[in-house]
């Protein structure tokens, strides 16, 4: 065991290298982004489902809607409060994007943060960019 010092030094360097991402990024974690609502969405007060559910499970809703619309031609969604909604992502004023027309601030912000890239907009036409 004559190389004890070399081995320990090597191990220390390896350990530092291994944990580099952790201490390099310490304290730099970006805060969870909060999606911005448009004035129209704020005025409407309620979405198709409660806010918490929409936050966590909106992709499930979109999936159910997609199959319902494409395969069964069901296009009217009646929410818990009895309100009727047009089951559509991007067509018309009463679709998802009709209300949430600020895609960059509403969708992309969180999707970027969570590093998910849904391919909705490969085919569906984005709402026009807001003029500021």
């Amino acid at each position, binding site marked *: 065991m004559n190389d004890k010092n070399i081995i320990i030094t090597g191990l220390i360097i390896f350990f530092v290298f291994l944990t580099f991402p952790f201490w390099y990024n310490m304290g730099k974690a970006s805060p969870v982004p909060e999606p911005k609502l448009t004035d129209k969405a704020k005025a409407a007060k309620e979405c198709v*489902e*409660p806010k*918490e*559910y929409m936050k*966590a*499970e909106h992709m499930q809703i979109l999936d159910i809607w*997609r*199959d*319902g619309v*494409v*395969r*069964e*031609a*069901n*296009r*009217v*969604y*009646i*929410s*818990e409060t009895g309100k009727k909604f047009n*089951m559509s992502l*991007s*067509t*018309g004023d009463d679709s998802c994007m009709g209300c949430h027309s600020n895609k960059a601030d509403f969708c992309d912000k969180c999707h970027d943060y969570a590093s998910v890239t849904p*391919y909705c907009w*490969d*085919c*569906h*036409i984005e709402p026009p960019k807001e003029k500021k």
Partner: protein
Amino acid sequence: MKNSRRSFLKLAGISALGLGTKPVLNAFASGGHSEKHEAEIQKNPDALKAKRWAMVIDTRKFESEEDFEPIIEACNKIHNIPKHTNKRHEIYWIWVDEFKHVFINQEHEFVDDRVKHLPFLVLCNHCEKPACVRACPTKATFKREDGIVLMDFHRCIGCRFCMAACPYGSRSFNFRDPRPFIKEENKEFPTRMKGVVEKCNFCAERLAVGKTPACAEASNGAIVVGDLHDPESEVRELLKNNYTIRRKPDLGAGPAIYYIV
């Protein structure tokens, strides 16, 4: 290692502890999903309904290529169909072809002049027994209860089995991203993406809100759609009073597009 009663008991104890954690982990895993009420989903009350959709094209009302243009244009515009410059990339939902190509079996040397030179409108036949539906490995293409053969573009993987199966050549493949080739995007309908097959959808999106298909609307009455199972429908009336032909009926696919020649 020397086995002893002591070491065996130790091992057994740890294993029992390990088994005990599973229900705890399951409880954690099931949390976090918020509850939702059983939502109700309905059809639009204005939607046009039929037991079996069909179309009758009265070719006597067409004279030249110009008569077809507004019809094809209406479809192209509504469905965001790209206009490719390269012929091999072209996308068709509805287009025209000659009698000898459209009605292969009915063609002969002495076909009358009008029919010989008249272009015929062709589109997806929305078959009774669609070969494309059987060929599709992902169920992206399916036949709806009302007879319309539809595509779920979300599911299409672009294998093109359906194109090989379709005896009418009604399907087109997006070899390129269609977006740059669409002059004017219709915001009410999505475009497609590269690597997806597409075809006529009998304007399912228009039927769902109570409008007739775009081609029928633009045809000044030369194209009529209706319910084949309703003896009172306009389609049945036309079929009763006129001699009609269909494309390649001998294949047994049961096309739902009828032509009055």
